[in-house]
């Protein structure tokens, strides 16, 4: 009370004075409302005075009484009108209204520190008993700021509650700045940490699934650390990259990959360097107005990630542990050994060869002896385990704020030996060096390791895909059969001596380990030159060191053939970014607000890769750690690529009377990967928003419709998807031999294009933000039309040119769509809350024209499984979707009735196929023969709609969150089914096919069940593998209990239990409809071939906040 304080204020309210005093003394101040009203503005210039002296100066001329409560550090100031002490159990009545004087119904009125309370009636009136005149009444109402009043001697207390417009004041991070959500002119979705933390995934991109309208996230592999394909408002590019630009704490991330997999399976996720628990919020910039500030990298949308930073206040230590298990959702049933052996015998007899499974040796049991045999899929699967530990410490004072976090994540997948681990350390530090200068430091290091079992390797090579093998491996062979024993190599497995590779050994003995080391450091200075003008400069660097070691020991087929084989691959990526910009912000004439940014940026990226292979090991002891023991060396390769981007950017936001908002943004980008005739690109955009809600004519509706804003924007953005050196012809080493002497040779192996330029997207957007009932219900709707032209195409040129492809700019693609997001606070009171969010988006892609080219095919790589190798699986053609599945249409199966009395076929044949039970194709051009010309569009891999639906309930200390997510109307090409349900010999089949296949006794016409003996040559991508990929998934359910213990050192303790992928409703017959074996390929989406099985995950978590 006798504390000395200093205070200087001019024309301030008493509340401002109280605030300053609170800062200096730690006391809080409460004054009679009527008294405050009388006070008016105060000017003070006092130093070294006691608190009492200062307060007396403030209330000079008023008869006041001051009560100092030292225990609670509270000072109560009241008018001395009545000195009488309030009667106990006095009754207080009053009326609660909104700012406009309209009565509020159902406002809860309570006495502080008492449980009992009342609510206002239809006229906004209340009546409540208070224990003493020192009691404090609390008025709380959803959507309004809570108010407190001291009773004193008042018997009537009327309150006007101030609306707390929910959501509109939330800060949205945009490129080079922030903006209040209410002032946005572009289409931007925000996702908070609260939503991110619910889905257990190693990388944040997977957690975005279903969270934002217009953002399609497909997990292309369900393995630990698996990759994801992200498309914001559809794919623009046919051959270029469609992944968005990631900007992390203002730092534009380079395109980072990892050490090469040398064709052995899918890539893992390059975003593994960022710990999702460190993220504060994610903004997804969707329209051109928002992304044009990122110019040549803006066309695919921009994902802005902001990490957690320290706040002023007491130190907060938070520790959480999460652990759980996962199991397979859906297992296809394959044939038993008996079924397999019967089938092999039948196949042999049909071609005049003796039945192989005749009981002549232990390796050739009769079908009956073979019995159930080995269930290979069961052998390679297990229960997955995951765990996560997270520790964060944050806090700070007015000088320094810090957030330090450490994290360990581990996920053991449902396929044996697949496992990802990651450790991460991050320090975010902010320093106010002076009043004008703030320095922010960000540093993180991440180390991750991934043991991979290579799902999808079948898409790339015959070796190494355990899932694909386990589905089709010969079940007669015992589980411990080795590649070198009687079952091994080429000597058994069937009568034709086909290869047998033991799927279990491939999983347990093959080594495939990727290690990534990521570091990130950034220094950002913000200098306030004047009140309005600031200068921001940042320098930062990311580094990735990645290595992938693959070793095929002898028990694997490759190891058997080559006396073990090792691959050692390394990759480094070093990126530097320097940015400098001015920011300017000023309000003119209390009505006009200008916000502007102008700056420049320089980015240098250097990536280097090294890959090597050796084979011929004396044993399998040292593997990739001792390649010098190998006897056969293959030519290693190195590569170095440097990219430079120089940019200038500018943006202005102009706000007229909080009604009309204009934004102009643009960027000029010069990039080294652009061809020499087109080094610089310019990307302008403009946006206009009309806050209708602030128009005078709208005031009548304002009580119901609390926000209404119309947004429009148009702009041009680019995609610099040109591969490094893509515009240049290149010469490669192509040697020849003379006897055993190697003679150096070289050849031009790619043909260049000096006019190559970036892809250009022109996007128009119209959006509406509307909110009702004090923003309890908020709706955002957007419609967009995005046309991308000058498409970069790795264009298939006739092989007669000597080359297979060249890169060109040709054609245009349109994506148009609708997005709709709804958020509602359905219940929000002191005991219960229910918030619900729903978003749905519908994108339609259409190829407007291909630049005179008739069509582009999506060809499986030349190294893929043989029947799809180099075969068109998808087509891109004028007026079609991007892309469409493509192939022959089987109408039914060939039956006896399809031959005339002379035994001549009466149908058009493909490859002279006339055997009963084989596919009978539609002769679409009626030329009497089935050829490539009869191929048709078979399906559309693009979903018609995507949605996400969240519900968060809480009741007292218990909360429940339920999240549904779905994809509707897309097709999947299920190539796994090609192996499991066609008559191709040598491979096991689905039990379903064995049971239903065409036989003389069962002359079915179902194209899913052809007869045995379908040759590879006749096996084509066709309509028999196209399935509906729609699904609705109960993605996550989380139950948590907040103990709210506020004792000793514990501030808070939360226990949670969650289940992920609890329920999936789909008609898809494979493991799971979320597939993409060709990863991010734009031309080969939605293809299933030996995909890693998706699992259900159950987790328990404990979160603890310490004092």
């Amino acid at each position, binding site marked *: 009370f006798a504390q000395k304080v200093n205070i200087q204020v001019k024309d301030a309210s008493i509340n401002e004075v109280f605030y300053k005093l609170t800062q200096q003394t730690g006391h809080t101040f409460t004054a009679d409302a009527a008294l405050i009203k009388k006070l008016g503005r105060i000017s003070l210039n006092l130093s070294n005075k006691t608190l009492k002296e200062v307060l007396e100066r403030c209330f000079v001329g008023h008869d006041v009484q001051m009560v100092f409560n030292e225990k609670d550090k509270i000072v109560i100031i009241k008018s001395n009108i009545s000195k009488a002490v309030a009667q106990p159990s006095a009754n207080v009545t009053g009326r609660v209204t909104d700012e406009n004087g309209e009565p509020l119904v159902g406002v809860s009125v309570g006495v502080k520190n008492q449980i009992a309370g009342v609510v206002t009636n239809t006229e906004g009136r209340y009546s409540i008993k208070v224990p003493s005149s020192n009691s404090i009444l609390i008025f709380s109402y959803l959507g309004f700021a809570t108010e407190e009043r001291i009773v004193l001697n008042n018997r009537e207390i009327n309150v006007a509650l101030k609306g707390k417009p929910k959501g509109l004041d939330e800060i949205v991070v945009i490129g080079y700045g922030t903006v209040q959500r209410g002032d946005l002119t572009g289409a931007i979705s925000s996702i908070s940490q609260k939503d991110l933390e619910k889905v257990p995934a190693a990388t944040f991109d997977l957690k975005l699934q279903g969270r934002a309208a217009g953002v399609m996230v497909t997990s292309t592999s369900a393995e630990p650390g698996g990759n994801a394909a992200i498309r914001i408002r559809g794919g623009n590019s046919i051959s270029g990259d469609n992944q968005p630009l990631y900007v992390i704490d203002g730092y534009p991330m380079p395109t980072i990959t990892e050490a090469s997999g040398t064709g052995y399976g899918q890539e893992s996720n390059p975003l593994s360097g960022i710990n999702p628990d460190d993220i504060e919020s994610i903004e997804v910039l969707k329209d051109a107005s928002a992304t044009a500030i990122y110019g040549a990298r803006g066309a695919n949308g921009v994902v802005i990630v902001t990490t957690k930073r320290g706040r002023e206040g007491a130190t907060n230590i938070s520790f959480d542990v999460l652990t759980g298990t996962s199991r397979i959702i859906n297992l296809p049933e394959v044939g038993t050994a008996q079924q397999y052996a019967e089938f092999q015998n039948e196949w042999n007899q049909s071609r005049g060869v003796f039945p192989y499974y005749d009981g002549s040796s232990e390796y050739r049991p009769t079908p009956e002896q073979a019995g159930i045999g080995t269930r290979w899929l069961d052998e390679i699967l297990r229960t997955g385990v995951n765990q996560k530990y997270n520790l964060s410490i944050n806090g700070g004072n007015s000088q320094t704020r810090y957030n330090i976090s450490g994290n360990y994540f581990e996920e053991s997948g449902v396929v044996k030996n697949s496992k990802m681990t990651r450790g991460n350390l991050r320090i975010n530090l902010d320093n106010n060096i002076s009043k004008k200068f703030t320095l922010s430091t960000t540093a993180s290091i991440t180390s991750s390791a991934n043991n991979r079992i290579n799902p999808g390797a079948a898409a790339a090579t015959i070796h190494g895909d355990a899932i694909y093998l386990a589905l089709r491996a010969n079940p007669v062979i015992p589980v411990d059969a080795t590649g070198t024993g009687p079952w091994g190599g080429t000597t058994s497995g069937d009568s*034709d001596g086909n290869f047998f590779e033991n799927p279990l050994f491939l999983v347990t003995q093959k080594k495939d380990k990727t290690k990534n080391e990521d570091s990130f450091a950034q220094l950002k200075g913000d200098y306030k030159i004047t009140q309005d003008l600031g200068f921001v400069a940042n320098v930062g660097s990311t580094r990735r060191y990645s290595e992938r070691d693959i070793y095929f020991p002898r028990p694997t087929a490759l190891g058997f053939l080559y006396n073990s084989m090792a691959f050692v691959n390394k990759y480094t990526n070093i990126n530097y970014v320097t940015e400098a910009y001015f920011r300017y912000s000023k309000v003119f004439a209390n009505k006009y607000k200008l916000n502007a940014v102008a700056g420049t940026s320089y980015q240098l990226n250097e990536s280097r890769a090294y890959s090597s292979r050796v084979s011929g090991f004396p044993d399998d002891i040292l593997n990739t750690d001792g390649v010098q023991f190998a006897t056969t060396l293959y030519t290693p390769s190195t590569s170095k*690529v*440097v990219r430079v981007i120089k940019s200038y950017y500018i943006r202005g936001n102009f706000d007229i009377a909080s009604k009309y908002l204009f934004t102009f943004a643009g960027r000029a980008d010069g990039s080294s990967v652009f061809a020499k005739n087109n080094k610089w690109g310019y990307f302008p955009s403009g946006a206009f928003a009309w806050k209708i809600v602030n128009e005078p004519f709208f005031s009548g509706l304002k009580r119901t419709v609390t926000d209404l804003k119309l947004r429009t924007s148009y702009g041009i953005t680019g995609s610099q998807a040109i591969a490094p050196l893509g515009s240049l012809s290149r010469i490669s080493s192509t040697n*020849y031999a*003379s006897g*055993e002497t190697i003679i150096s040779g070289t050849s031009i192996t790619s043909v260049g294009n000096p006019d190559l330029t970036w892809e250009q997207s022109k996007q128009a957007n119209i959006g509406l933000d509307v909110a009702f009932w004090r923003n309890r219900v908020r709706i955002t709707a957007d419609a967009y039309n995005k046309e991308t032209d000058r498409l970069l195409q790795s264009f298939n040129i006739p092989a*007669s040119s000597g080359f297979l492809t060249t890169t060109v700019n040709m054609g245009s693609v349109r994506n148009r769509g609708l997005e709709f997001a709804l958020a509602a606070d359905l219940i929000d009171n002191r005991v219960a809350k229910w918030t619900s969010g729903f978003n749905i988006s519908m994108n339609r892609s259409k190829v407007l024209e291909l630049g005179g080219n008739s069509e582009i095919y999506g060809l499986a790589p030349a190294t893929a499984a043989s029947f799809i190798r180099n075969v068109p699986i998808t087509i891109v053609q004028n007026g079609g979707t991007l892309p469409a599945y493509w192939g022959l249409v089987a109408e039914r199966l060939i039956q006896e009735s399809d031959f005339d009395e002379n035994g001549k076929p009466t149908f058009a044949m493909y490859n*002279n196929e006339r055997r009963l039970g084989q596919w009978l194709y539609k002769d679409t051009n009626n030329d009497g023969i089935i050829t490539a010309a009869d191929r048709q569009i078979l399906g559309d891999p693009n979903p018609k709609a995507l949605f996400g639906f969240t519900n968060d309930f809480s009741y007292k200390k218990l909360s429940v969150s339920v999240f549904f997510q779905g994809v509707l109307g897309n097709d999947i090409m299920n190539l796994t089914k090609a192996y499991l349900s066609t008559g191709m010999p040598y491979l096991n089949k689905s039990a379903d096919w064995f049971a239903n296949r065409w036989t003389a006794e069962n002359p079915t016409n179902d194209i899913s069940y052809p007869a045995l003996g379908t040759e590879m*040559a006749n096996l084509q991508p066709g309509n028999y593998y196209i399935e509906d990929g729609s699904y609705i998934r109960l993605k996550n359910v989380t139950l948590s209990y907040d103990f709210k213990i506020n004792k000793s050192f514990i501030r808070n303790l939360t226990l949670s239990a969650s289940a992920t992928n609890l329920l999936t409703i789909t008609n898809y017959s494979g493991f799971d409809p979320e597939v993409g074996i060709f990863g991010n390929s734009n031309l080969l989406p939605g293809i299933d071939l030996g995909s890693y099985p998706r699992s259900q995950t159950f987790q328990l978590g404990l979160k603890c906040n310490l004092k």
Partner: protein
Amino acid sequence: CEKLDEKAYSTLTPENYFSNADEAKVALMGVYNTLNREHIWTHNLFTMVLLPNKYVRTRVPVHKSIAQFSFSVSDDRIANVWNNAYEAINRANTIIGRVPNIQMTDSLQRMFVAEAKFMRALSYFNLVRLYGGVPLKTGETEGLSTVYTPRSTEQEIYDLIVADLQYAESNNLPKIRPSSERGRATECAAKTLLGKVYLTMAGFPLKQTDKWNLARLKLKEVIDNKATYNVDLLPNYADLFDVNKEASNKEAIFAIQFSYSQVSGGSALPFFAAPLNSTFATANGQYNYGFTTDFRSLFATSDKRRDVTLISSYVAVNGATVTYNAPGSTYRDPLGIALGKYKDGPSKAPANTRHATDILVLRYADVLLMYAEAENEVNGPDNAYSAINEVRLRANAGALSGLTKDTFRDAVHLERLLELSGELHEFFDIKRLEKIEDHVTNSYEAQQVQVSYDPKMYLYPIPDREVSTNRAIGLENQNPGY
């Protein structure tokens, strides 16, 4: 903007290359490089040439479609062979176009161009025989404007082949290559190939009978100059296919060089050809090609070529003797007797695609048989016996005599089977001699799926990919029947 110039760190570009004779020579080796790809000549082309044949069977399902004349237009083997030939042609075109502008001696310049033209002719010769009138490209591809080439007629293709080989035979190609240049074209190789081209033009489909004499004269030049060219029959037939005797193989006029090295291409053929569990290749053979017992019985018992060409019996890895059609053996009809010309030990090759066994594209016995055939067509058998008998006597098959022009013709055709089977001649010969129908109707494999003869079988289809990417070729330009 200078800083934005893109620098190629790990590759060369044409802008900083092709400036001197050394670079031109290295680029010329890049043309030859198209020959020793591990899967083209040794596998894809080999399969396409050998399998459509009544004497041949295959164990491997994917190859049956070739043996059954029932492949798809998108068959990757058919595309690979096409792609590879045009890769060679474009590389040769680069040499032919750029070398005259590079500073070097005239004789070196002409030799480089002659070698490139030899390679271009060889590539077109395979293309025209397999696919018919293909796109005729004679200049380097330098941008999109130069990639769409329509089909030419077979005659136009042959005109280029003949012109290229005529240039090659008379422009400074060495008569004999030192051992360090083994595998590169010689004057003798150019003349032999030209003789073969004339012989082919005389047969189906061009049937230009005036070419018989041109073939006869050209092949006679080779025979008359065999000492100059240092070529001749080897005394022992088996030595021709001995991987350890390739350096001293005088009979090889042009052979594709394969090595055990990992740096350059190796051959996969020993691996694909060797019977199961045999010791003739790394990691076991794949036993892709089998000959019928009918074919075996074409050989006289004394004929030394029989047991070189066919592995009727061998000692397996486990020491057991495996004999074809022995009671209880799985090595039996209808799979066929494995081809024995491409044996290599399992120990030397580091991988199954890294065998060193060369492929003989042109050899002296072929010259003698082609000469005998042309001589008989032009002048009758009288002066043709010596050539055919030289080949027969080496094989201990006895001399022929007393034949008419017609019976001599049949004898030469049979002799080609006995002497040259499994050496990339089959499809080309049965096509030239218009015998496809016989080989379809009497093929075990084709009859398994009841394929009947169709005239389309004289050509492979233009690969689907070419038809769909080449704006100058439409579906209507596909070979009839596909």
